[in-house]
């Protein structure tokens, strides 16, 4: 089993003719993803990596009955791409694009919500269910099927951690990269119930960062609703206040969103919090050996 993406996922790549769109269409296909269409206005009739290109989402959906999209279009056009995807009736949109103004993202989030479309991202690596499907840009090499569900605000750090879990001989049900922006379509609190409900996920790894209160919110949720073991990690313990640490969302502002606060909240909710990413695989292995399968 898996959450959000699986063998029935049929992907449209919005912005397929761009460099990133093309590269990752290839990578997704190598992963086993059914990439059924691409969209780039004015490029209908061409194809990328064997995938037919359409002028619009409506046309791509009509031709291929896709149910998920992956957005690679540049930030100024991302709002429009999302609205187009939502209006076309897509179920799931992974927005890889970074640097989308959060004011745009507010509109995008609330509009998608009205229409029942789930957004993952923006500025995220996407979702992968090893052996089934991947929508996004997480490197194929890091995965191995297994019982660990991973949710993370980070990109490459997630690759590292997933890689570590896989190298340890464990593996993943689904890995969801939520993205590092202040406003995201799916937060820890939104993703946790999915992994909690997935019968094959035996343990959840949650990779947080400084900034915002998503981890504190997650701790509240875990305390009340999550029965599975959760292993946490918070990047940015050493970050000084007021500095934006790469991600727009990763900033300690006005004394809020510190690693300490997040760590304490998670621990009080029964989450075992690793101090360094390299500790995670051992903690996972130890916990899995204790937990009933």
């Amino acid at each position, binding site marked *: 089993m898996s959450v959000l993406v699986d063998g029935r996922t049929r992907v449209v790549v919005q912005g397929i003719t761009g460099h990133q769109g093309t590269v990752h269409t290839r990578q997704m296909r190598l992963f086993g993803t059914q990439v059924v269409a691409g969209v780039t206005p004015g490029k209908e009739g061409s194809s990328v990596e064997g995938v037919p290109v359409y002028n619009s989402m409506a046309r791509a959906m009509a031709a291929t009955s896709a149910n998920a999209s992956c957005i690679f279009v540049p930030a100024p056009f991302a709002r429009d791409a999302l609205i187009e995807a939502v209006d076309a009736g897509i179920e799931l949109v992974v927005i890889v694009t970074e640097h989308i103004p959060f004011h745009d993202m507010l509109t995008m989030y*609330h509009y998608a919500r009205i229409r029942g479309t789930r957004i993952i991202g923006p500025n995220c690596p996407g979702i992968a269910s090893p052996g089934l499907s991947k929508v996004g840009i997480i490197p194929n090499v890091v995965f191995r099927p297994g019982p660990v569900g991973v949710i993370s605000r980070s*990109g490459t750090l997630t690759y590292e951690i997933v*890689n570590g879990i896989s190298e340890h001989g464990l593996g993943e049900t689904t890995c969801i990269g939520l993205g*590092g922006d202040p406003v995201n379509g799916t937060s820890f609190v939104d993703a946790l119930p999915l992994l909690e409900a997935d019968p094959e996920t035996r343990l959840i790894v949650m990779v947080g960062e400084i900034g915002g209160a998503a981890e504190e919110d997650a701790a509240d949720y875990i305390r009340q609703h999550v029965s599975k073991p959760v292993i946490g990690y918070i*990047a940015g313990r050493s970050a000084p206040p007021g500095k934006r640490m*790469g991600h727009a969302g990763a900033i300690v502002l006005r004394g809020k969103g510190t690693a300490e606060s997040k760590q304490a909240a998670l621990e009080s909710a029964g989450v075992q919090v690793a101090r*360094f990413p390299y500790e995670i695989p051992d903690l996972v292995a130890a916990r899995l050996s204790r937990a009933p399968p």
Partner: protein
Amino acid sequence: MVKLAEWRGKEVFRKYGIALPKGTVVRSSAEAEAATRTGTVPLPCVLKAQVLAGGRGKGGAVRFAATPAEAREAAEAILGMEFKGEKVRELLLEEKLAIGRELYVSLTLDRSLRLPVLMVSPHGGVEIESVDPTSIDRQPIHPFVGLAAYERRRAAEFLGLTGPLAKSLDPILASLWEIFQKEDAELVEINPLAVVGDRVVALDAKVIIEDDAAFRHSEYAEIRDDRTPLEEIAREKEIAFVQLDGNIGVIANGAGLTMATLDVLQEYGGRPGVFLDLGGTDDPKKVAEAFLLMARAAPRAVFLNVFGGVTRCDTVATGLVEAMRQVPASERFPLVARIRGNNEAEGVAILRSAGITSLPDLREAGRAVVQAAQGGRP
């Protein structure tokens, strides 16, 4: 994040019709004297250093003057001073108003709700962090309908404003919302919003514009008050560049990985001085660019921590080695690399043959770079 200096923030306020004290910006003591002598700024007046850091009052960066001569004198004292690392180049001269209560008003983002939030407090004039949360009213605003009149009324009530005072607050709140949306602001704050007679007036202005919205705000393109020159170059190359107060340079791809790297360095007693985040990419060209940029920051030692995902590690390693050759011998620094992921073994071999240590384990790598920065060999 474009933090506008107070006077720029007030220009935005003025454009949206928010009540302000009469004032002008000056860049010399002569200008200060002239502005008060000609009546552009009524006397008595206040002179405020245009720096971004807070705590100007206590830090001597705010002075008062009752005559043009005093204004000149005060300006001389403030201009050119160093305030929390910023040199004072501009002063805002404003009439000194007879101030009653000082209030707090701001609009910012509530990430958890994914909604803008209007915050007001009757305790203005101090850092909002120091105010008892029960004295702060927070109202989430839905972007599809905007700041409603009933929300503005509730804010006035919470602030204890009635009659003409409440009436003068109302359009200010409406304008704040307009600014927040139309100017793509992250924060719009008035602290203090002061009671002056029967109206409220914005004594300060804090406006932070979102960087990511720069493509539709060319008017802010030239305002980079808080960036160092190297940060500016990095920005052009789309590399996140942050200067901290240590001496170890860190190049990594991805914000999370960068932060985790800094955390490890600190654990081993290292002090990160500069970090470059390439973003999620492992593009060899960008790795090389970051490397050359790092060289200009003259770190004591550098830690390169890249996870090769789409691009293979050997390609990344080749690019890195080529970039190294472009750095003159005199500017070289000890380098510890950690390249992981796709085709890792081949990449590590290429680095090794170019004389670069590459350690797969983050602990070991961290320890090595801290040692190198302290004078040992990596």
